[in-house]
């Protein structure tokens, strides 16, 4: 994509189950698809195990020998590099002995900082700019956040941010609609509890919208803190309570209960989309946003079709040149 903004695409929409998107030829097809659509950079997502083989530095190394080997793999498909990687330290992984860690628990902080290091080193080695992190776990799994909780969360991210900055990598905290940091106020407090030099915000247009926060307004308010963007659309907003349902990952986001909405995230330009994508992108341009804009669709059907529809929207509706 040739534009004043820098565009990338998230691979997560291909990796929808543990046993798919494992073979290199499948990954090559996805990379070529993105390349053909004009995307030169991708976002990775952390995972676990031998089948999530784009999900952890040590597993990527078993597959490609070295960070350089991995870049060569990308470049064989005309994808130039990696913009960023998404990581959730609260997600138990096999490689960490399925440890369950929480950023609000100060006893876990040292381990969280330690576990961030391989990711930071890997991102630095492949020239990626941002570690995109989930700041805190789902709301339904924990009591409401007190003031000290936000302080504790801020502390650990400042520490991670320091490690990242030393390696030349940025750290951006990603708001999501199930998170314990849910309201605009809570999000502001989290930003205020972190050092602007070390920690930025990853603004996800669909997640904010579902969570009841207007992404355009919030961006206007805190644009100086936004260092990373996920651009996607949604057709629904939370009623205000669904994110608290037990098992919200399934009961809310997969329609297991409540209003039974089985798909929340959609491609740009979807009928009935709630995100004002054009206004948001115009705001990015107006403020000279310097970071990556990562287009994604999460899990929503046929990955190649979604990528094509997203690219079409960029070209036709946002006047971004494909090559």
């Amino acid at each position, binding site marked *: 994509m040739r534009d004043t903004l820098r565009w990338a695409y998230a691979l997560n929409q291909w990796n929808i189950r543990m046993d798919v998107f494992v073979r290199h030829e499948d990954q090559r*097809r996805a990379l*070529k698809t993105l390349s*053909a*659509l004009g995307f030169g950079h991708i976002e990775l997502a952390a995972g676990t195990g031998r089948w999530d083989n784009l999900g952890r530095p040590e597993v990527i190394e078993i597959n490609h020998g070295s960070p350089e080997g991995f870049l060569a793999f990308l470049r064989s498909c*005309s994808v130039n590099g990696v913009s960023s990687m998404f990581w959730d330290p609260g997600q138990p992984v096999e490689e960490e002995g399925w440890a369950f860690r929480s950023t609000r628990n100060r006893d876990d902080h040292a381990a969280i900082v330690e576990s961030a290091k391989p990711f930071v080193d890997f991102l630095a080695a492949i020239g990626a700019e941002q570690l995109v992190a989930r700041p805190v776990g789902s709301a339904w799994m924990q009591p409401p956040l007190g003031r000290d909780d936000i302080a504790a969360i801020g502390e650990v991210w400042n520490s991670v941010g320091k490690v990242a900055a030393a390696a030349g990598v940025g750290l951006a905290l990603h708001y999501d609609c199930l998170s314990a940091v849910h309201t605009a106020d809570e999000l502001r407090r989290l930003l205020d509890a972190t050092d602007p030099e070390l920690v930025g915000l990853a603004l996800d247009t669909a997640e904010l919208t579902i969570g009841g926060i207007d992404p355009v307004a919030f961006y206007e308010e805190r644009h100086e803190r936004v260092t990373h963007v996920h651009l996607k659309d949604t057709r629904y907003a939370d009623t205000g309570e669904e994110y608290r349902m037990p098992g919200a990952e399934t009961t809310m986001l997969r329609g297991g209960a409540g209003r039974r909405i089985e798909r929340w995230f959609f491609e740009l330009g979807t009928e009935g989309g709630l995100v004002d994508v054009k206004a948001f992108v115009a705001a990015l341009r107006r403020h000279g946003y310097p970071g990556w804009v990562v287009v994604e669709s999460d899990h929503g059907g046929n990955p190649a*079709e979604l990528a*094509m529809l997203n690219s079409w929207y960029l*070209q*036709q509706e946002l006047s971004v040149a494909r*090559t």
Partner: protein
Amino acid sequence: MTADQLAQRSETPERRIKWSYMDHWRSNGPAGPVDQWHSHRTMSSFLKQIKAVGFDAIDTFDFRLWQMYGDYGGPAKYQEMVQDHGLERIVNIFHAADYDLRNYAPHVPETHENILEDFRVTMGHWSSVELDNIIVMPATLYYDMEPVTEDKLKISAELWNKVGEITAGYGVKLTCHHEFFCGIQSEPDIEVFYSYTDPRYVSLFIDTAQHCIASVDPVALYRRHAHRVSGFHFKDTRNVAAGDDHRHRPDSEIMAPTTGKWFYEMGTPHGLVDFEAMMTAVRDNDYRGWISVEHDKANKDGGDYAESTAIARWYAVNVLEKIYR
């Protein structure tokens, strides 16, 4: 880059080749697989995807005509929708006829008047849009034509000369596409056939996969006949027809015992077509105009049209356009 700059880019003079997409397509609907003609919504989604990967135009089948009339108001109106999605136009149409020895068989002279009348009517229907080619399979199924004799080839050639004259009257080239399972598919038969056809009225349409399956080298064939080649289907295959595959009753295309899926998008692993050699030949002959990408039945065996289309386009940009564009 702004829209204006983008428009300027597409007018840059150095591009000699434009890419069209032959519109086979399936996607998953709520009640099972549907084609793009299912609704305006699915059509729009299809056109967006074709545009997104950088195709310039589309090809289509002429049996879609009735739906174009019923649902869009005719070919010209349908083409407006194509253009609204940023694509140039409809470049070629494929005339898929029901070949039958009783009333529609190029090697049977008694059926010729019926065929000629079919083309007079068809060309009238399409006169509202500008087309480059109307593409035909120039023979019946192989088993309906065999033994393939010089006489039958000559009779077929005479028919297509006359058809070509009709289509030329509408400014459209009649061009022949040789399916591996049709009566005119082997190298010697193709050569005899073209020796009897009039280059003014009958062109050759190279389908890289079909020739390859029929054990004909598409590059050599093209080099021999380049002056009368009016278009291409760039698609790949992983299998050459063996034994009676080309004359399997009742059908070879889907039912041949050896092979469940014949066609693949270009850029597929284990593909048999040498596209780089093909593109080099296209360059050497200074061909200018359209190349069509096709991969029919891409959805078989778990495949996916959207992905195949993107991969094929990737291949065009990253491999073929480096040779000639």
